[in-house]
């Protein structure tokens, strides 16, 4: 190689290095992490927006009364939802895991899960429950009535616009929960099964 060729090769390499450095700097600026703040601004507290606390409501949940033959409501503090259907879903979720303070008791079988909640324009609400609500039920006409209407009343209390509730199990319409109460149709409120709330009807945390 002549001395001229060597000179040209060195110049080409230098130009390529400069071009590569410029290119790398631009890429880093465009896609890299943001530059560190200046020392003066780093010591200034950043403006934090305090989260707005969501409004809370007290929803009545229906549980078995002290006489073991009626339902009473206990107030449950919960987040206020944006729609009545979501409010009913929250109330049902709370009902399924509620442990009322003695002598009140829950009418819901342990392990019962809420699979879905749907409403129609005509005021019917469909509550889809997991199969444990039936499998773990202790049986008996009265006990089944209390279970069914505990759910019906809790939904209707949370959704004043609704008029009736039908219980589905694992997504299907069923004849009964435990061999007695007809679940083939939506059910309305059964006031004769209710008692006024007890003065100290608090729930355990």
């Amino acid at each position, binding site marked *: 190689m002549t001395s001229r060729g060597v000179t040209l090769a060195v110049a080409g390499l230098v130009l390529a290095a400069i071009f590569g450095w410029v290119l790398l700097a631009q890429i880093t600026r465009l896609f890299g992490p943001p530059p560190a703040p200046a020392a003066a601004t780093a010591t200034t507290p950043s403006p934090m927006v305090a989260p707005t606390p969501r409004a809370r409501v007290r929803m009545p949940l229906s549980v078995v009364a002290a006489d073991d033959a009626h339902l009473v409501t206990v107030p449950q503090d919960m987040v206020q939802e944006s729609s009545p259907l979501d409010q009913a879903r929250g109330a049902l979720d709370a009902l399924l895991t509620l442990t009322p303070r003695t002598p009140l008791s829950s009418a819901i079988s342990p392990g019962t899960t809420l699979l879905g909640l749907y409403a129609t324009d005509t005021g019917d609400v469909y509550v889809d429950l997991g199969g444990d609500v039936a499998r773990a039920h202790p049986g008996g*006409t009265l*006990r089944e009535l209390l279970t069914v209407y505990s759910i019906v009343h809790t939904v209707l209390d949370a959704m004043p616009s609704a008029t009736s509730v039908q219980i589905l199990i694992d997504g299907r319409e069923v004849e009964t929960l435990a*061999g007695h109460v007809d679940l083939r149709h939506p059910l309305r409120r059964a006031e004769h099964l209710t008692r006024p709330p007890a003065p100290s009807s608090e729930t355990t945390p």
Partner: protein
Amino acid sequence: MQRRLSGFFLVLALVGSASWLRLRADEAPSQPQAPPTADARIIVIDPGHGGDDAGTASPAGLPEKDITLAIARRLRTALDSRPDLVTVLTRDDDRRVSLRDRTALANTRKAAALVSLHVNASAADTLHGAEFTVLAPDDAGGVALESPGTPLPVAGGATRVIEFAPWDRVALRHRTDSLRLARAMASAFEAEGQLSPRGVQSAPLAVLTGATMPAVVADLGYATHADDMARLGSAEGQEAIARQLRDALLQFLVETPAP
């Protein structure tokens, strides 16, 4: 050898027959039965639950399905002594029968009454006594059950007025008679101090839906109450319960003219 084998099977047959007779005698004491008359009225007795549906159970584990079947058989025996009655059971063994089929059997047999036998349960052990429930669909208020009917053509060119009623409300036509039957039963149990304070109730119970005759669900006591279970689980108690039900049914039928 052959003689020995014959003897063995003879003894086996005798022991088996004696056991069967003893079992039958324990479940349903024999009574003189008269053949039913041509215009005999049919009573359908429904032993609640059955098969893989055991219903509730006593603390000792006695299932509701066995109690209801035993009492239903005793009630049949008590009623079959009457030539003017025929008693039909919706199940006579340990099998599952859908509630729809139980009601359908009573309808197709054109029964004068349907009595579904059950045993109640409670979380506490304090509730006790018998309760009797008639149908009360919770949306029944104001439903026009007395529709005038629609004239429809029938064979021969004539017309016949056919009344259409929703399936789930047809039983409400018999609500007054159902209440009368329930109250007769409640009185029979009250006289023995065996009536629950809840007495006669109304509820949307599936076996009553669609019944085209007076129909009652009889919860004969609480499996969770010791005194109730002493009666429900013993032959003497079951016999007494069957007698009380029979007396109430007979009183109801006397006051109900045959169609």
